């Protein structure tokens, strides 16, 4: 069931990124809802789940974008994996934990995207990387107060809880 919810959330996120978020561009960047979902989900469910959801939602994003198929899947796969490693090491009741993880996760994701895109032949200039990386991380982190509370409830007691089956 949670995968269905995640897929639905991913789809909503992608539609919003394609439409609404174009109106909310700040400092040249728009937030990445899929990445926020992947990182927060990984933080509650560990590296294996994080990597899996990152791979799947990244895959969905690639299908949406229909170019460099696999690039988003690869970056979100690794970001989810790395965020998942913090599952047992972080005290998730503290609000600053997800804030810090989202911020760092966004930085790592941007770096990975830069690295992988250059590997697959899509050249991003370093100057653009430095221009985007910090505002992107800050913008994603700004979503934390609105999302984390319901994500926390859902992941501990609700529909995204790990043992909830389809």
């Amino acid at each position, binding site marked *: 069931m949670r995968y269905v919810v995640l897929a639905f959330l991913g*789809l909503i996120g992608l*539609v919003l990124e*394609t439409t609404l978020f174009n*109106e909310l561009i700040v400092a040249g960047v728009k937030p990445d809802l899929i990445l926020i979902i992947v990182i927060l989900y990984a933080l509650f469910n560990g590296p294996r789940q994080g990597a899996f959801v990152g791979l799947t939602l990244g895959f969905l994003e690639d*299908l949406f974008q229909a*170019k460099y198929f*696999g*690039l988003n899947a690869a970056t979100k*796969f690794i970001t989810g994996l790395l965020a998942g490693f913090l599952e047992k090491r972080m005290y998730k009741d503290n609000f600053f934990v997800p804030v810090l993880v989202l911020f760092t996760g966004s930085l790592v994701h941007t770096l990975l995207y830069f690295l992988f895109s250059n590997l697959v032949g899509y050249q991003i200039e370093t100057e653009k990387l430095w221009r985007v990386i910090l505002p992107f991380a800050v913008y994603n982190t700004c979503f934390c107060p609105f999302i984390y509370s319901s994500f926390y409830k859902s992941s501990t007691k609700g529909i995204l809880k790990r043992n909830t089956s389809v």
Partner: protein
Amino acid sequence: MTRYKFFGNLVLIVIVLILLLTGARFTGMERDSFTILETGIQAVKAPLASGATGVIQKVKDFFGMLKEIDDLREENALLKKRIGELTQEIDLLRDYGLENIRLRELLDFKEAHINDFELLTAKVIGRDPSNWYSTIILNKGTNDGVQKDMTVITHQGLVGRVINTSPRASEVLLIIDQEGAVGARVWETRETLGVVEGRGQDNNLLTMIHMAHDAEIAVGQTIVTSGLAGIFPPGIKIGEVVAVKDETSGLMKQAEIKTFVDFNRLEEVFIILEVSDLYQIQQELENQKEGLEQ
């Protein structure tokens, strides 16, 4: 065992990565055709994005409209302010225009009488604060050569005489004040002598008294100063006869005179500092000529 598991996982991760990146490498930015999966997703994406964009556009329109109302309000306030400023500017320019006309008339008068009088232009800076006297305050005083009993005129006619002076200002008793009596005569006949006095009202009307009952005076004639009392120079226009009647005793005639000067709109005046000998001789000669003719 754990180490094997770790390496197994690492190899898996690397393989997945290689597969994904290889896929990305070979799909690139542009392709001739989509895979079935991509085609399916694009088919779902299009209506979703279209619907979302429609909703967003409506929301944007709504907020745009609110913003537009705000902008219009702001613009309206600005325009109102601008109208106020421009109206003030127009009023000011109109004032300047009227002042210009008045000053030009004064200048014409001054030039026309350059040989008759030494004139000093003065501005009316105040009026008597009480309701009892018809006096005005001018911005010229003894520092400018103004002295008591000097005659004050405009290009239209007689205004009054200076009754008080200070270094920078002087007070003028207007002829419409009941204390402001002036020796006068009819300009057309030159002979009809009388005294013009004010009625103590600000209605620009005077009464000419002490005229013989057979005096030749008629409505429409011009009344000028006679110069007999020695204060006002002779020949200065005072006003026009608007009515003639007998006094109650029947021995004397009385006339109602409308002043040429509009005392309600008095802004600039002349003070006659000096009357030229030539003017006085001229007036005397004209009097004698009139006398001889009669």
